[in-house]
């Protein structure tokens, strides 16, 4: 096949490559089966590791006897919590980078207590999976089973089982004397809430309940760890950040980070769920003890039972508005399940729920509540989707009561440049209004609906992050370029890096080889998360390319024996301002590099601070079957401000993917526990994610309001798309049936119940 780029129809004004849609550089490997994911490496002498997991939701570990397992044929190493250092609190950071070493080390391997069904408490490495599983069965654990709690309200009750005897609620005054399951209380308190509601002509208030949902990446967590005779570990695994894996693995083993080298596998989806470690430190310790490489691949059941879903929640919100549709006040409380350790994204939920709007009077409380289920992990715009399900449903109710079109209500209250956001900062140039207008002007918004059909709209906000990234650019002998970064490519970011490098260097995008380098070959880089890669890692690439161009100009000046200021870089060529010298290409300059200073290469690193916030507005058309309660998505359209779409196809892909996950969250997905706290649906048959026949095409409109904090105007695009769907679907169901759905998922059973309760 000839791989061709088409830098014609939609390249951006002023750009040659940015905005075009070349075939991604890693694509060929991924359509031929050659790409190596986490489970695709086998080494000579490699052992298979397996993890013993708690059958109880909450229990004290009285004893673990591994002697029988250790004595079994083929078993080469056994570890328990005793094989890992006990770490103490001292976490820093926030959002998707947040972790507390105390909790992380106990989550990876339980110590005195198991805190959820599926909690790891021992592991073995053996010569085959069969032997490893037999050894797990031979480990004897004596448990003192304790009462467990899953519901946030029950977990906050005075007589609730306490998960952590040392957990004292943060953010309340006075500091409590007794431990509880409330890890922290977060508050946004602005303006005068009583005055705000006094000004309101209409007040709506409602309670909402959502269940935990899993990121649902198709590739289970997988690792091969090989600790050599020098004590150094080489770890091959898929993750959203191999530097994160290095630092966490080293910390959990009591090592310096430099003792661990992490080689990034291709990653088979993450959505935030692979921004922490589970089996990586375990495989490394097993390998160290056995003196052989150890591979651990989770089963799907383990992924559901032991890795981060996102929080279920209980949310109460109250919104006031004037007759002409001006929002005067919002008040409410959100309680999110953190899982077994603190750190739900509830504060982010509070910040995001009303972020698209200019509202003066705000009082929102967020409670982070530990319960006996897996510790939650980041999931695409963590915390925002459930909060926006609540807030955007209420706005629909306000619009309905006032008789105002729901998009018009949003436009009347839309935040814009200069407005102080609900969560604090003053917005720079933003594109929220433009997303609302894009939906209003889209043909779907005026398509006629039939019987039992309805239309709903909703908007959403996500911050996007910047952070630390590194890049190195080499000009090869033939004038092509290699672009090395430390950002795992989870959805086409190699192509974005190559496009930006092509734009800067002025060479063909296919003459760029974008590479995701290991932890010893490129500078530190934060995780692929927070919609940060194209923005922050892209800035590092741009900076490195600009250094290379500066160098290339200097070398041409040297060859021509002129001042460097007389050399311009145009379309991948050095030109003399006089025009009387033959231009030199990267190939010419690379060929002569030995005589002008040696190889041509440059690195750059950034801690990007200028992330641009993202907004999405979506419209959903549904049909509700009154006999079964089943909801069919008829049409769906999403408009999102990308700032600048570097590779529009992958921007659309992020928008569509977020919507599909949101529709799953809206209609089907939930963790179901039995009375003992055991997850009843830890597989794709019963944890029902959308399949192709569940969905229509998902139309996209990319809005481009450039982010002033990026050279090309890039905003993150990965996350905000999942924020509006739940409310968009709920509002569409209301339009079709007159029913306000306040619990997720809106499964046929729940919809049918609501129809019945409504006398239907």
């Amino acid at each position, binding site marked *: *096949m000839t*791989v061709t780029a088409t830098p014609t129809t939609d390249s951006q004004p002023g750009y040659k490559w940015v905005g075009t*849609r070349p*075939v*991604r550089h*890693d*694509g*060929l490997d*991924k*359509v*031929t*089966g*050659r*790409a*190596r*994911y986490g*489970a*695709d490496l*086998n080494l000579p002498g490699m052992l298979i590791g397996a993890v013993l997991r708690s059958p109880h939701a909450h229990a004290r570990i009285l004893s673990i006897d591994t002697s029988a397992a250790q004595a079994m044929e083929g078993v080469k190493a056994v570890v328990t919590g005793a094989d890992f250092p006990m770490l103490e609190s001292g976490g820093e950071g926030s959002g998707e980078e947040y972790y507390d070493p105390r909790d992380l080390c106990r989550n990876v391997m339980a110590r005195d207590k198991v805190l959820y069904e599926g909690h790891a408490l021992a592991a073995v490495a053996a010569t085959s999976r069969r032997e490893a599983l037999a050894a797990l069965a031979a480990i004897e654990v004596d448990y003192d089973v304790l009462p467990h709690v899953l519901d946030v309200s029950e977990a906050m009750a005075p007589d609730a089982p306490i998960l952590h005897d040392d957990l004292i609620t943060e953010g309340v005054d006075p500091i409590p004397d007794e431990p509880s399951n409330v890890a922290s209380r977060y508050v946004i308190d602005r303006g005068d809430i009583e005055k705000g509601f006094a000004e309101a002509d209409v007040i709506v208030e409602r309670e909402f309940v959502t269940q935990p949902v899993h*990121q*649902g*990446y*198709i*590739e*289970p967590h997988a690792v091969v760890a090989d600790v050599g005779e020098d004590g150094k570990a080489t770890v091959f695994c898929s993750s959203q950040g191999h530097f994160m894996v290095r630092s966490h693995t080293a910390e959990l083993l009591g090592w310096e980070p430099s003792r661990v080298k992490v080689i990034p596998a*291709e*990653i*088979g*989806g*993450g*959505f935030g769920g692979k921004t922490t470690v589970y089996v990586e430190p375990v495989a490394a310790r097993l390998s160290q003890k056995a003196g052989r490489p150890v591979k651990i*691949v989770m*089963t*799907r059941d383990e992924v559901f039972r032991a890795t981060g879903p996102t929080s279920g929640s209980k949310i109460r919100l109250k919104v006031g508005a004037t007759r002409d549709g001006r929002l005067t006040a919002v008040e409410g409380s959100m309680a999110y399940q953190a899982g077994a350790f603190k750190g739900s994204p509830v504060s982010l939920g509070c910040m995001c729920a009303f972020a698209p709007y200019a509202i003066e009077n705000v009082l929102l409380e967020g409670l982070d509540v530990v319960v006996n289920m897996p510790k939650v992990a980041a999931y695409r715009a963590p915390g925002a989707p459930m909060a926006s399900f609540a807030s955007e449903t209420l706005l629909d109710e306000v619009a309905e009561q006032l008789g105002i079109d729901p998009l018009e209500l949003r436009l009347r209250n839309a935040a814009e440049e200069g407005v102080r956001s609900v969560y604090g900062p003053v917005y720079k140039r933003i594109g929220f209004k433009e997303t609302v207008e894009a939906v209003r002007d889209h043909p779907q918004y005026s398509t006629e609906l039939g019987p039992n059909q309805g239309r709903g709209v909703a908007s959403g906000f996500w911050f996007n992050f910047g952070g630390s990234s590194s890049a190195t650019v080499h000009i090869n002998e033939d004038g092509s370029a290699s672009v090395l970064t430390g950002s795992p490519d*989870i*959805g*086409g970011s190699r192509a974005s890096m190559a496009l930006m490098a092509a734009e800067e260097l002025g060479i063909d995008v296919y003459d760029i080889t974008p590479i995701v380098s290991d932890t010893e070959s490129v500078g530190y880089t934060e995780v692929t998360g927070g919609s940060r890669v194209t923005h922050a890692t892209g800035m590092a690439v741009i900076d490195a390319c600009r250094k290379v161009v500066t160098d290339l100009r200097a070398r041409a000046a040297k060859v021509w024996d002129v001042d460097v200021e007389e050399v311009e870089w145009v379309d991948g060529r050095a030109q003399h301002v006089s025009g009387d010298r033959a231009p030199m290409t990267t190939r010419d300059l690379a060929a002569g590099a030995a005589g002008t200073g040696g190889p041509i290469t440059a690195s750059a690193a950034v801690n990007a601070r200028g992330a641009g916030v993202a907004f999405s507005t979506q419209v959903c058309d549904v049909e509700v079957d009154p006999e079964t309660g089943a909801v069919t998505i008829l049409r769906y359209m999403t408009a999102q401000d990308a700032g600048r779409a570097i*590779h529009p*196809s*992958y921007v*659309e*892909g*992020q928008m*569509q*993917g977020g*919507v*599909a*996950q949101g529709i799953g969250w809206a209609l089907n997905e939930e963790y179901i526990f039995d009375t003992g706290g055991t997850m009843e649906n830890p*597989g*794709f*048959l019963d944890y029902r*994610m*959308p*399949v*192709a*026949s569940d*969905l229509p*095409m*998902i139309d996209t409109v990319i809005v481009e309001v450039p982010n002033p904090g990026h050279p090309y105007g890039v905003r993150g695009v990965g996350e905000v798309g999942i924020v509006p769907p739940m409310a968009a679907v709920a509002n569409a169901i209301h339009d079709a049936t007159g029913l306000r759905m306040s619990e997720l998922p809106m499964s046929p059973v729940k919809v049918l119940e609501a129809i019945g309760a409504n006398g239907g």
Partner: protein
Amino acid sequence: MSRTHVTCTINGDPAEFLCEEDQTLLDTLRDVVGLMGVKEGCATGDCGACSVILNGRLNCSCLVFAPEAEGATIETVEGMAGPDGLHPLQETFLEGAALQCGICTPGFLVAGKALLDRNPDPTEEEVRYAVAGNLCRCTGYDKIVRSILDAADRMGEAAPAS
């Protein structure tokens, strides 16, 4: 444990391998034959990442015991491209950005080929149902469905008029 000797055809070539009697075809293809393009997403037949065409029919290789492959013909993603280049599905998946993380892609390509082998001109709905056994968590299926339809068009144009 004694092993079972299996003789079969994989991607057009004669092949033989040893397997344990309760080993899945998926595990054998990956760990014995070395075809790592066959992916494991669930091992319970729910995600389609391990899709292969077994004796002309689409199958989850995790639901087949390896000894059942005796005498069978097996097609995997590794056999789709030939000396003349990529299969049209592979081309349209690349051009249509039908993959993000790519872990489900081999399964979708195999499922798409199984569809087009028996129905060269499917409707959108037929495509959606033909790949309903394959989970993709990244794309929302839009670009996958379009790419399969585009491949059908491309193959139809290339085929001699009947």
